[in-house]
């Protein structure tokens, strides 16, 4: 039993506002990936290190980031830190939560990619007269990027979808926030949510296609 008449015209009137929201969503996702990749590289190095002062904090980060719901991570960034007197705005809290999550997953992606390349390749390079750094740059890095690239774009899509959790901390300018706000004003729930879903799909698809294209350009033999 679904007793509802769709009024698409009313929903389309909301489209410009929702597109603005989609832009904010994309912006947060991109920022969280840029910062996330940076942190993930540091974490991956730390997890490969023999110093326990580097290994254990990095391991703790990865464990928490990968084994707790993203919703809690974002909620804790806002209300959790708030109870210690550290106030992050909804935007920053959402960005921090997603970045925390991204860094945890990407760290393991990078570490896995690094592990996939046998040591013998570096030794072979060294025996050809390459230095340690040169062998890494010419032999390990290109292969590592190739392995890690698609999982990384996967995480990018996940980051886009995670931004929708921002409403729980009062985020109102991203796509979900804008949609929720319009929904409680007009009660046109199903048209608005359907439109939002289409927009999320389009963004995620566009990112994935862009990544495929980039991978094809970069990693062709």
């Amino acid at each position, binding site marked *: 039993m679904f007793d509802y008449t769709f009024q698409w015209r009313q929903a389309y009137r909301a489209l410009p506002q929702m597109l603005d929201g989609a832009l904010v969503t994309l912006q947060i996702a991109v920022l969280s990936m840029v910062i996330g990749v940076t942190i993930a590289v540091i974490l991956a190095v730390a997890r490969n290190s023999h110093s326990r002062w580097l290994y254990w904090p990095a391991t703790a980060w990865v464990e928490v980031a990968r084994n707790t719901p993203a919703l809690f991570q974002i909620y804790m960034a806002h209300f959790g830190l*708030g109870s210690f*007197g550290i106030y992050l705005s909804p935007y920053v809290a959402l960005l921090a939560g997603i970045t925390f999550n991204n860094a945890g997953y990407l760290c393991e992606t990078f570490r896995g990619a690094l592990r996939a390349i046998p040591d013998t390749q570096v030794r072979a390079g060294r025996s050809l007269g390459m230095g340690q750094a040169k062998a890494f740059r010419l032999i390990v890095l290109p292969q590592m990027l190739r392995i890690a690239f698609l999982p990384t774009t996967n995480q990018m899509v996940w980051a886009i979808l995670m931004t929708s959790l921002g409403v729980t901390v*009062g985020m109102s300018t991203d796509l979900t926030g804008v949609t929720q706000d319009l929904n409680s004003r007009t*009660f046109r729930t199903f048209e608005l949510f359907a439109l939002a879903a289409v927009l999320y799909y389009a963004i995620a698809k566009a990112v994935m296609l862009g990544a495929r294209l980039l991978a094809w350009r970069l990693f062709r033999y």
Partner: protein
Amino acid sequence: MNSKIIASGLIAAAVLVGPATADKLDDIIASGTLRCAVVLDFPPMGSRDENNEPIGFDVDYCNDLAKALGVEAEIVETPFPDRIPALVSGRADVGVASTSDTLERAKTVGFTIPYFAFTNVVLTRDGTEIDSYESLKGKTVGSVAGTYEAIALEEDINKWGEGGSFRPYQSQADVFLALSQGQIEATVVTSTVASSIVESGKYEGLTIGGDAPYIPDYVSLITLRNEYGLLNYLDLFVNQQVRSGRYQELYEKWVGGEAPDLTINKVYR
């Protein structure tokens, strides 16, 4: 024509016509259960007691309605944003959920005559020096997204400029948490909620900082827009609650004092 044909014709007509004319009101009476969508984080209208049982003005109102219909009441807990999906998906029959009767929403859902009227106050923390609505200029404030008071507050904050900002939250509980943590400096809530939350002492240091000069927020029962039979019944029920003094009785029980007028002078509804 012999009587056999007439009789079978009548039976056929009853079979054909019977189900077709049954509307939501008939369905409720036939099913023996009235399912009310009630918001349970909005005291004193709806909340839970120590035993996790739903209590509040809206809960009692739903029970009264079920009694009038001669059926059992069932409270369906519904957050504010889910009121329409709850009705449309058939999870609830009626929304007894403090729904402001805006014209925008009335394009989607059927409103009865108002069953309650809210006035709004500023709620803030000790030591913020906020003592009137005007002193909210340039402050960070928040409220439950999309509510009557949230829309009015956001408009004023934008109109004033002066660096003030507005944050919408998903639930009343989140607003109080944000306020008590200092993430926002004040909120505008209905006077009933404000006095109830200050009295409860659940959040320390909250205090009422003056009245918000809004037009009273009239709220109605809601059901599907095309259920005229039910809407008609609900209108009469609201009228009877006031007439019989039950509205005043419930108001004293949950809020205290004189119940506000549900009518506007010089106009119907």
